């Protein structure tokens, strides 16, 4: 029964991202800052660190599925989030062996993953012609604020889910 929780939480996070911008005060929305929530990715990073075993790839599978859901629900350009999230989670799965899993490593991996994801997504959108600002503007107004905002989010998620994910890991079906 436990393995139903992960897709359910991820689905709720996908839906929550849609109202994420309502939570911000509208003066922030009006300004040039473009804070982008990547809450699904943050949870996927936690899954990769705490839930996946040495030779399992649940996180990549979920990244693939829920990235596609974000594409369908919010952008209409299929494949961008799907591909990006899967690649980023793969990198995190490779990197996690180097550090012990605790809150600092989770934060570090979170920041790394947002940075890579943001860059890949925007390179794709730049090539396709949807993004139309200069890269310096992008770094100042979107990348840095987004990394900070999502780092805060992973710090909120960590105490709620870190222990639980490890518990669920031990009850995984082999």
């Amino acid at each position: 029964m436990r393995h139903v929780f992960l897709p359910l939480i991820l689905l709720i996070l996908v839906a929550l991202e849609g109202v994420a911008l309502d939570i911000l005060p509208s003066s922030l929305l009006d300004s040039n800052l473009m804070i982008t929530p990547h809450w699904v990715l943050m949870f996927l990073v936690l899954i990769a660190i705490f839930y996946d075993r040495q030779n399992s790839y649940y996180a990549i599978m979920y990244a693939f599925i829920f990235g596609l859901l974000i594409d369908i629900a919010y952008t209409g350009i299929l494949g961008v989030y799907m591909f990006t999230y899967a690649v980023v989670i793969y990198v995190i799965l490779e990197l996690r062996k180097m550090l012990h899993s605790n809150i600092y490593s989770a934060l570090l991996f979170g920041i790394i993953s947002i940075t890579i994801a943001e860059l890949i997504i925007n390179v794709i959108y730049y090539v396709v012609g949807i993004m139309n600002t200069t890269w310096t503007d992008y770094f100042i107004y979107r990348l840095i604020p987004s990394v900070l905002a999502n780092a805060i989010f992973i710090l909120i998620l960590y105490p709620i889910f870190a222990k639980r994910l490890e518990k669920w890991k031990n009850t995984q079906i082999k």
Partner: protein
Amino acid sequence: MSLFRKKRLFIILIGIIVLVVLIGYSLGNRSKLSIGEQFVSDVIGTVQNVISAPVKFVTNIVGNIGDVRDTYEENEVLREKLAQYKGLIYEVQEIKEENEELRKLLDKADSIRSYNPIHATVTARSPERWIEQVTINKGKLDGVKENMAVITADGMIGKIQRASQQTSTVQLLTGFDEFNRISATISREKGNDIFGLIEAYDRESNSLILRIIEDSDQDLKKGELVVSSGMGGVFPAGLPIGKVKEVIPDQYGLTRTALVEPAANLYDINNVVVVDRVLSGEEGDEE
């Protein structure tokens, strides 16, 4: 080990090919959503319906606390305005009746002004900031179709981009590009109306760009109201779009463009009306 590395490279290559194919497919000229996409949109839409109500409730309370402070002053101003409007309402009523009578005389019941409203609530906004779209809780089952105009009480905010069964996505004016032109007009007396096309949204000045195609020697003033003209065949006439902020000549001095500030607040949208035009234009014609 080398076999494993080869396999990995292979997977990444296939991934990139799939990515390119999918992007090509979704950017191609498609007007309908595939069944799978419709299903996914509806499922996420249902979850969003459940979630958005409490979130909006809480954010509204926070907003209301701020509003309470300004209420008294606003009330005074509004009272004054209301008194002015009373006279206007009477006048409009008279004109409407007269208009109807005249139309009956002419045997011309529908005009490009009339439309059926479909009321909807915004349930989500795209977190991807390059893509300016919101999701509403009405879909094909309620009569929403692609390319219908979407308005709030203040004015136009965008058009329906994709419709699934129970939800649809609205492309906001801020996300309009050269493929989504709106034919617009500025009303003048004696048929001297100024016509133009809303061509794009300019992020730097936060305004829509209106290229004036006729009567370029007529003077435009700051603050004049720009409305849709209904000539594009998709949107009805008379939907307020925005106010003229600035007029600038183009580089050759032949035509002039006006920067138009959208009338509706495009960041704080809750309730919208989808506009179903009564008279249909030419099918498949891009506005």
